[in-house]
């Protein structure tokens, strides 16, 4: 099995304006997604939701700044680490990943264990 990250990019104001209910719905959708991954023959090996981008601190060289690395309308809001047979399988899984206010990006994990 190959390893992939599913990176979830969404407009944060979607959750801000949707309130508690929007958040609750998203959490339930993620719960269902986690079950679906197994049904699809994949496996979740890690992942989490991130606090909003305003809580980010960026460090480049010696300089520490308030805010995310790049200001974009859709911010990285969470991620999964998954195992899948190949890219097509990973895409089939990622298609079902909830991202009501944006979308997801699939990235292969680099194998650095070989040195």
């Amino acid at each position, binding site marked *: 099995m*190959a390893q992939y990250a599913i990176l979830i990019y969404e407009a944060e104001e979607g959750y801000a304006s949707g309130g508690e209910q929007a958040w609750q719905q998203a959490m339930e959708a993620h719960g269902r997604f986690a079950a679906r991954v197994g049904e699809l023959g994949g496996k979740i090996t890690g992942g989490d939701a991130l606090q909003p981008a305003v809580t980010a601190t960026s460090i480049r060289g010696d300089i520490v700044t308030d805010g995310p690395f790049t200001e974009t309308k859709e911010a990285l809001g969470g991620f999964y680490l998954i195992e899948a*047979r*190949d*890219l*097509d399988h*990973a*895409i089939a899984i990622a298609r079902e990943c909830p991202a009501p206010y944006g979308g997801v990006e*699939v990235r*292969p994990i*680099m*194998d650095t264990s*070989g040195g």
Partner: protein
Amino acid sequence: MADSQPPADRATVAVAIAEAHRREWAFVLAATVRVTRDLDAAEECVQDAYVAALDAWARQGVPRNPAAWLTTAARNRALDSLRRDRTLRAKLPLLIVPEPVRDPAVPPGGVPAIGDDRLRLIFTCCHPALAREAQVALTLRLVCGVTTAEIAQAFVVSEPTMAARVTRAKKKIAAARISYRVPELAELPDRLDAVLTVIHLLYTTGHTNPHGANLVRADLVERATGLARMLRQLMPDEPEVAGLLALLLLTDARRATRTDEQGHLLLLEQQDRSRWDQADIAEGAALVVQALRRGRPGRFALQAAIAAVHAEAPSYDKTDWPQLLELYDRLLIAWPSPVVALNRAVVVSMVCGPEAALDDVADLERDGRLAGYRYLPAAKADMLRRLGRAGEALLAYQEALDLADNAAERAFLAGRVAEVQQPAER
């Protein structure tokens, strides 16, 4: 000596190798990839096999089955180098090559599951996770064996740019684990559409070379037709494959008549129909029948059907325009593209008159997706010219002229500008 056949002369061998390169490259490479599970390594081995053939065939004569000879040579090289330096391959993950017996991609009664890896190769090159321009470059490089320099020339980019594009795409295939396989039945329609689109794009780039001086690039056109033939042989039951091959043949049948001796563009109505290639038309028309027989035809089958109506019309005036309009209506449903809508508008102008068609053109101008598309003002200009609205026609021709790069098309539009200017100035 018993084992020394009279050596084949160099010229014979050179011709045989050039022929084998054009016809068998995809087969040899696709089979070798299965051994190396690395596209670059496979390419090197195949390249070496062709070089080795130069000497071997001169000594032993040209083998009866060049593809089998080259495949064996390339695969042996691959096995040798795998034994020698396993470590070299650790940079990128190896391609995932599912076993053919487990490959559920074979449609009932369709492609034989074992024996031919060319479909795997072409579906890998045209994987939707690759950008269209990368799909095109990879298909030419890996399936057709065209050099990066030649691809760069065909697409008017520098050689380093094209080399970087090909390298990036190969790296993504390996790193993102794009499988070396034919898509499963459920994903086949979409995936096949990408393959057909790439082949069609190669054809149209060759057919109307957008920047060059000549209207046709015979090499690209022949590559595209060759690919369509190969795909037809490998997927004989796919109506859209038959449709694509038919479309290319029917369009190409008119190749010799698209320009006059001076290279000036000739419209359909000005072309000498007696010089259209009747063999291509007959083959294309027969394929259209097959493609349409299966019901719910796709966009390539419908485009081919449209091309067949034109090809079989005894003259421009005797073209069956109502049937064309019906086909365009169906095409617009199968493929709701503004370019199709524009072509349909031209047919509307023949069935219902230019006045009615101008309404459709106005809709397309408002729609905005065709902004900068030279055929929109050109079609509009022609409708206005036919209505005798010379002043408006002039403006539209001028707009089309500003957008056209191809020398033959520019010359044609400049001629039309001069033509409508005359009555306007009187």
